[in-house]
């Protein structure tokens, strides 16, 4: 406001106008942006301009970038033109990365809670104080419950996550829980059951693409997004989604499919392709297992049947099937990423994989391509083998597993009732994990370390997550900003941002793999550390406490001393050199070009060579699974009719936006501005709005059995009348997320906490809501 005043004085007679006032009012809203770190952080005075290669960390894609640094301040992050995977781009979020280290809301010092949990009273402490506090609490918990697994470790992916996983091993807990079961666990499971892996799609060369719900134009800006946009004129792109997203705007045809019925369409396409003899007979004979069973299985799944389920006309399904076969192998039913949709998700993803297989659109130009990587050398460590350790709480037989299933699928014989059939040991199943903690079954878990993840906002049913946190005796969160989870923690450790630290080299696997790394673009502005340093420091602290080692083996302490030595005081550049030591010149290329790769050409057909085996039981593409019947599951994908919202209720679906994918960028003013609104809004069809007595711009209460939220109403033709939506990551609980604290509505608050029991994935499209005028 200061600037505006000056101007009004100097040029009052000319500048005073509606526009100026409006702009002034806008500036007030984001006044915090002015408090940049030049006033607070220890900014480098290094004069001149430099360009530093590194990599983005705002989403999972990790695009390589070149940072322009002027006089010690990040001026701009630019795309790296050597990095073919990003197609030379940096998205909106990648661009605002330049402001991340200077964000007024970021964490600057270790904090220990002084008030009640969630009250927001903290004292700034030294790292030593924070470490002592943590070590004391960890030892106390292990002793009290005689169990190292009484401390849980939650994290999400990132190049420093491996050090958090090391910390898990140092403490000795089996209870690690990661993001995949809020995201793509069912996708990995479904595709792997057919191909032994979750493949990528060769969108650059595909001629016919069907995408169902993976809103690629908004959810993530990936190579696939770009290739779809670039190929717009040459490629046929069919998009299925209850909402007319920006992907729908890009599509040749958009079908507002009835949610939860996608599998009916896929089975009907398979039916058409087989019954009309359009499948690739040679490919099917040579590379697949179980075709005859499949042929019998889909006989009943006619396009007319699928029309009744999905509301997509039978003729259109026939057209899709014929085009799919005609364009093969350059045809793709897009595998997508987040697949936490409805209860039958694993079988649905299986059906998608099968559709691609029968037309031979596998490992050939324009089809599905198995990912490959560049293997890097790693340091091998031996972590302690403690006595006081129990199996993970959500692993093995869990007698309340059926409770997480939606009612309508509980009688389905292909759905396990007393366990998660294919639970990942490292990832767990978030929904079931939290239930086990709350029930204290089979034993109490009373401590938590959380790295980079924000379960309060990312796990469905926020009230339940808060209840879980409340039941904890100790919570330590490591993050760069005060996430909602950090807000409810006892100790908060500030991590250096991705632009202030070294990160190890990492191979981005994909159709053509490439290695990236991170190096500091600027020195840390505040008293922050990397996760690597935190783990090494804490390990050192544990080594000083004999009480910590009572259930360890003699030599374990020595192993851990070796661990500390490997990293303590060793520059990350040496570690990266070691990682790349199999490839002469790779380190130099990485430092100069910002990335390392052997070729940017896609190696087609590796799995189709004579003698090649897939990682399935038969080594072939399993149209009928061999493993599934052994685990009591259906060998072939059986359609399950989803339940539909009763009269007066609506299905709530989750979705993403080009500015906000996870919950970590909603507080960035530049992105809120690009989004175009200060709060999220409820998409509701005009007919439904009329029924509920709602007008555009009203506020409504959206209510489920999990909770309720107040949200602004956006009446729009862009959604099905039975489906409503609002954007993820608003209505936050942390007061240090200034721009979104209690602004808009949280989806985690109203999402009911269902999961499926094959992969353990959460189900984010199974919630029905009531809507009333606020």
């Amino acid at each position: 406001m200061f600037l505006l005043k000056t101007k009004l004085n100097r040029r009052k007679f000319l500048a005073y106008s509606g526009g100026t006032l409006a702009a002034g009012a806008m500036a007030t809203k984001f006044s915090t942006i002015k408090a940049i770190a030049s006033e607070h952080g220890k900014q480098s005075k290094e004069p001149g301009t430099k360009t530093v290669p590194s990599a983005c960390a705002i989403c999972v894609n990790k695009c390589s970038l070149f940072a322009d640094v002027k006089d010690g301040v990040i001026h701009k992050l630019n795309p790296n033109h050597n990095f073919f995977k990003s197609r030379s781009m940096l998205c909106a979020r990648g661009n605002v990365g330049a402001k991340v280290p200077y964000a007024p809301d970021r964490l600057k010092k270790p904090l220990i809670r002084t008030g009640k949990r969630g009250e927001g009273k903290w004292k700034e402490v030294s790292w030593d104080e924070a470490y002592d506090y943590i070590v004391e609490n960890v030892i106390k918990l292990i002793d009290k419950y005689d169990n190292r697994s009484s401390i849980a470790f939650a994290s999400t992916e990132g190049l420093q996550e491996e050090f958090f996983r090391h910390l898990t091993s140092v403490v000795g807990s089996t209870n690690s829980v990661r993001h995949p079961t809020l995201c793509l666990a069912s996708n990995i499971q479904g595709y792997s059951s057919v191909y032994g892996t979750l493949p990528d799609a060769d969108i650059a060369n595909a001629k016919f693409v069907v995408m169902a719900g993976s809103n690629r134009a908004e959810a993530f800006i990936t190579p696939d997004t770009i290739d779809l946009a670039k190929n717009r004129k040459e490629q046929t792109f069919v998009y299925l989604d209850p909402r007319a997203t920006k992907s729908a705007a890009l599509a040749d045809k958009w079908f507002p499919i009835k949610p939860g019925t996608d599998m009916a369409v896929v089975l009907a396409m398979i039916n058409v392709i087989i019954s009309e003899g359009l499948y690739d007979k040679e490919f099917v004979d040579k590379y697949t297992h179980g075709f005859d069973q499949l042929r019998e299985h889909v006989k009943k799944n006619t396009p007319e049947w699928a029309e009744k389920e999905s509301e997509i006309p039978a003729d259109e399904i026939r057209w899709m099937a014929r085009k799919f076969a005609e364009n093969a192998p350059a045809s793709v039913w897009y595998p997508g990423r987040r697949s936490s949709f409805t209860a039958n998700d694993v079988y649905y993803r299986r059906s998608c994989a099968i559709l691609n297989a029968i037309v031979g659109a596998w490992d050939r130009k324009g089809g599905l391509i198995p990912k490959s990587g560049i293997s890097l050398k790693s340091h091998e460590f031996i972590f302690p083998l403690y006595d006081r350790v129990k199996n993970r709480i959500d692993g093995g037989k869990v007698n309340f597993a059926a409770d997480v299933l939606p009612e309508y699928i509980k009688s389905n014989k292909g759905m396990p009732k007393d366990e998660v059939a294919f639970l990942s040991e490292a990832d767990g199943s978030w929904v079931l994990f939290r239930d086990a903690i709350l029930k204290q079954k089979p034993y109490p878990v009373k401590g938590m370390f959380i790295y980079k993840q924000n379960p309060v906002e990312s796990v469905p049913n926020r009230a339940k997550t808060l209840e879980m946190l409340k039941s904890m005796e100790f919570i330590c969160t490591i993050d760069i900003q005060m996430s909602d989870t950090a807000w409810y923690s006892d100790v908060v450790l500030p991590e250096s941002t991705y632009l202030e630290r070294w990160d190890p080299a990492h191979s981005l696997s994909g159709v053509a793999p490439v290695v990236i790394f991170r190096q500091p673009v600027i020195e840390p502005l505040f008293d922050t550390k990397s996760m690597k340093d935190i783990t090494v420091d804490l390990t050192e602290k544990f080594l000083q406490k004999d009480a910590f080692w009572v259930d360890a083996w003699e030599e374990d302490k020595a192993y851990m001393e070796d661990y500390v030595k490997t990293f303590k005081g060793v520059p990350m550049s040496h570690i990266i050199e070691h990682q790349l030591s199999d490839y002469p010149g790779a380190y130099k290329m990485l430092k100069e070009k910002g990335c390392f790769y052997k070729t940017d050409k896609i190696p087609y057909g590796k799995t189709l060579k004579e003698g090649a085996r897939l990682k399935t039981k038969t080594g072939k593409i399993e149209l009928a699974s061999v493993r599934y019947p052994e685990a009591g599951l259906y060998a072939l994908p059986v359609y399950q009719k989803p339940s539909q919202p009763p009269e007066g209720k609506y299905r709530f679906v989750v979705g993403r936006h080009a500015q906000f994918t996870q919950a970590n960028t909603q507080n960035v003013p530049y992105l809120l501005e690009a989004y175009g609104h200060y709060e999220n809004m409820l998409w509701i069809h005009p007919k439904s709005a009329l029924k509920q007595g709602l007008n555009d711009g009203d506020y409504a209460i959206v209510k489920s059995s999990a909770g309720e939220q107040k949200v602004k109403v956006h009446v729009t033709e862009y959604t099905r009348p039975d489906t409503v939506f609002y954007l993820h990551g608003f209505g936050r609980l942390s007061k240090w997320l200034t721009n979104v604290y209690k602004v808009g509505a949280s989806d985690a608050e109203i999402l009911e906490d269902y999961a499926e029991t094959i992969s353990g994935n959460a189900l984010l499209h199974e919630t029905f809501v009531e809507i009333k005028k606020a």
Partner: protein
Amino acid sequence: MSENSRALKLAEDNQKLANKRKKAKEKWGIVLDTSKCIDCKACTVACKMENYVPVGFYNYRIWVAEDTHYAKYPVISRSFQPSQCQQCENPPCVHVCPTHASYKTADGVVMVDSKKCILCKYCMTACPYDARYESHTTEAIDKCTFCYQRREEGKDPACVETCPPKVRVFGDLNDPNSEVSRLLAYNEYTVLKPEKGTKPKLKYIK
């Protein structure tokens, strides 16, 4: 140095650069294929970063417009049209400026000398494209400069460089071998509001 002083310095440096480039032979232009645009806003955010444009809906140099052709469920048809200052060959903003703050560089970029600007906003009224804004950092009217600071290094403007599907192509319209010239030679194209006679150097492929 604060964000404001950086913005001021950028404006001054660009004036100097324009002076230095008085004999430049190029004529810069952008050719756009909007069919590829997905409204991801990478360009608008990159522009703000590169040019120190403060946050706020009224502070913008470039934008993405949405064109809804039809929207009655279940038939929705819409497209996106990114744009910015058209760098007109016949720029009305320059003609109306009483202090000669607005001018055209030798290489055809319309610029504002912030020291001469008195914020009378005649140019804002005259511009048919609404491409100018009042900058609180330079205390002058400001606008897209095709990232003039990048001309010396030969780098594309930030919006062009960062775009995921590369909707925009930047180059020298005077050079028959440039990609922009080739695109114009082999595609039908149009300009925005041709009836205004402004002769824009932003060309839209049909």
